[in-house]
């Protein structure tokens, strides 16, 4: 079986996987990082979004072997070591941007990449269009959009 060596949330792992193993399966089943979710099988919902070398990726649409040599960040790796939440996590809580919580990890990871990719700031329309790859069935997105708008200046101030 192929071997994959990758860094996940700052920690290096070497794992044997079947060639067909998806990155999300490696994270959830081999590393026990169940914060990354699987909500569909057609790359539509974005519940599985993680950062690969700092850029958001749908981990259900990437083979584990493709992640060889990369650095992956999952929702579990966002908060500071002392438990301080990332500003995006904090704003999601503050603005009630989650209900059942299932889409939340992918939504937060996508939102962070969206803000990072737009240092000049984002309009509401740009936030909504930027969330094109993530589905939420609970919130109607209203509060997610508010949370991202609130988190952006906090992230850029850092």
């Amino acid at each position, binding site marked *: 079986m192929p071997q994959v060596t990758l860094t996940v949330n700052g920690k290096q792992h070497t794992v044997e996987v079947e060639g067909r193993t998806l990155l999300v399966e490696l994270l959830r089943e081999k590393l026990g990082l*169940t914060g990354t979710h699987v909500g569909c099988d057609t790359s539509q919902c974005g519940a599985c979004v993680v950062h690969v070398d700092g850029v958001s990726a749908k981990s259900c649409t990437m083979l584990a072997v493709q992640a060889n040599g990369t650095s992956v960040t999952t929702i579990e790796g966002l908060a500071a070591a002392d438990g301080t939440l990332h500003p995006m996590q904090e704003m999601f809580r503050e603005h009630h941007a989650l209900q059942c*919580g299932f889409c939340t990890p992918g939504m937060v990871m996508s939102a962070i990449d969206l803000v990072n990719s737009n240092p000049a700031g984002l309009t509401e329309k740009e936030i909504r269009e930027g969330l094109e790859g993530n589905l939420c069935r609970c919130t109607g997105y209203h509060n997610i959009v508010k949370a991202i708008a609130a988190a952006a200046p906090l992230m850029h101030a850092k």
Partner: protein
Amino acid sequence: MGFEGIGASVRRKEDLRFLSGNGNYTDDINRPGQLYAVMRRSDRPHAKINGIDTAAASKAPGVVAIFTGADMAKDEIGGLPCGWQIHNKDGSPMAEPPHPVLAIGKVRHVGDPVAVVIAETKQQARDAAELIAIDYHDLPSISSTPDAIAAGAPLVHDELGSNICYDWHIGDKAVVDAAFAGAAHVVKLDLVNNRLVPNAMEPRAAIGDYDTSSGDYTLYTTSQNPHVIRLLMGAFVLHIPENKLRVVAPDVGGGFGSKIYHYAEEAIVTWASAKVRRPVKWTADRTESFMSDAHGRDHVSTAEMAVAADGKFLGLRIHTLANMGAYLSTFAPAVPTYLYATLLAGVYTTPVIYCEVKAVFTHTVPVDAYRGAGRPEATFLLERLVDCIAQDTGIDRVELRRKNFIPSNAFPYQTPVALQYDSGDYQTTLKVALANADWDGFEARRAEAKSRGKLRGIGISTYLEACGIAPSAVVGSLGARAGLYEVANIRVHPTGSVTVFTGTHSHGQGHETTLAQLVCDQLGVPLSQVDVVHGDTAKIPFGMGTYGSRSLAVGGSAMVKAMDKIIAKGKKIAAHLMEASVEDIEFANNTFTVAGTDKSKTLTDISLAAYVPHNYPIDEIEPGLDETAFYDPKNFTFPGGCHIAEVEIDPETGVTTVINFTAVDDVGRVVNPMIVEGQIQGGVAQGIGQALLEAAIYDKSGQLLSGSMMDYTMPRADNLPNFNVATENTMCTHNPLGSKGCGEVGAIGSPPAIMNAVIDALKDYGVRHIDMPATGPKLWSIIQAGQTKMAAE
């Protein structure tokens, strides 16, 4: 501690674990030695099974076992039960065909499970499932609702002789016909309520875990009501007594009704776990969810209103065909009857109503309650009909509604369709919504849009629904095979912190916060010292679960009752400790006080005494401070309100953009305004989805065309506007909280508001009605036809 009680928008207690990836959903759970189950499902809508050859699959790597319907039959496993029996017009019971857990003899819809493969890994189970050879003899099928009653239609269940599940009615047809005979106007509308796929973001999953030493079974499952699953699966399917069966519904990623029902896969993994003597896990792929989760809506109706010259509604006559799918899901028969026809008075004084409903079987996935369950269908029908009446009679649509409203001084109000409303103020929700939406300024906005080449419309819906299901005796008389009370256990620990064990279940609603706020309010305990436990039959005495916006109105009321018992017992302990008479003890702000004195004891003093009863009235009361209450509601609750949608249609593409959405709802007492607003926003989003985007579509051959998230249009962030949400509340008069429920109002009130706005935008083209969803291509065709017609005239 700031204000944390009823009325405070405190941030949710559950958020930290969800935001840090520490949620505990069913698929996150792994049991030692766990195997994986994959279902082999029918790819045919209707076929006889001549044989199932599992030989090659059995030899595939990692396969531990393969089971079919015949194996389950050998163990005398029962079919999946239906929880509600409707009676026909003639008093006979509905047709209730068997619903085998794994298909026996025939398959009846695409997705019907035929066999289960259990293997060491999910991939091995999936590979082996493909090696099972099923010899089918294809049979003709029906996939559209009206086709079910066509002459010569193929039968879904041969033994029934027809595809009719029941032919039911409510109201006095002769009296209603008489109202029509003398009416100045009769306004008729044919309409379809489109079939939907709930699509909670977490796919269903289940783990069966049989303990070989104790003989106990545990089922971890994505359920809105673990005790109901224990009852149905234990008693009717697997014949496991409650004391040997634990059902755990941990964090559940959304339900919207689709996770109420007892599904085949739950029974399969529980049973199979004992067969293979190892835990067995099944997790749905999204594609499986589309073809195995219960769908929603799917009504075809004709509605007629008799209207007086002055616009007063005189009588309503409705005929509805409702699709049950191939088998009866747990609560399916109740949805198009007691959750639909009983709502047809709406907010209006229509004096006589007759509704007949034929429920039919088709070769499609079972249909059951989906967010709103019957009330969205009733509301869409009524609010579209009212707009048609306005159009046909020339009476202003707002005036027409006002004229027919049940006045706010008429409560309790007995409708002609069984329900008695306890409270409401429809004029106020209308007035506030009109102001919030700037209804009066609309024509200027329409003109401005026209100058940009856009078609702008505004639509209104004034609606009512029934929640807080429901008095057990009432629902029992209507065919429910369960009681619909709720249960709460309040445990005050020795040092004064509190654990609430609730029979309701939170799958996004925020109960861990809202229900804890009730404890802050009534017992004065800080939120940080209150935990809410739900979703485990081993921890919670009993419960009927969460659906029908019932958790606060019914489950919260049970908590109030249990806390009343805590306070009553605490007063006895306090009286003993302070050497006073029980009648003189008052309780407020976490403190028991002897009236008129400065003598007091905190709840913590009392709980400590209750668990360390050295100085204690031991002859009168038992130690401990732990009380349970069952609350059986006295009536349904009746949230309602007014939704106003403003849309713009691009005539070049037919695409509708929702510009503004205003909701003013009456949900009774609000505990956490932030959470209530979130519930309404989410409900409205699903309503907009139904109106503009979503449809479960079967082709003529019985295949589900919209069978993935590539094909079924889920609302995305850029399909939706910001929502202008407010509440104007009147209190429920019959429960101790005054709460009515907020989980479904958004999905109930919004679809007709959107469609009325779309049709208003197209009014120059003479459009009277459009069925949902109002997709771009559909509207583009209507606009093209309208333009061609206008050019010709």
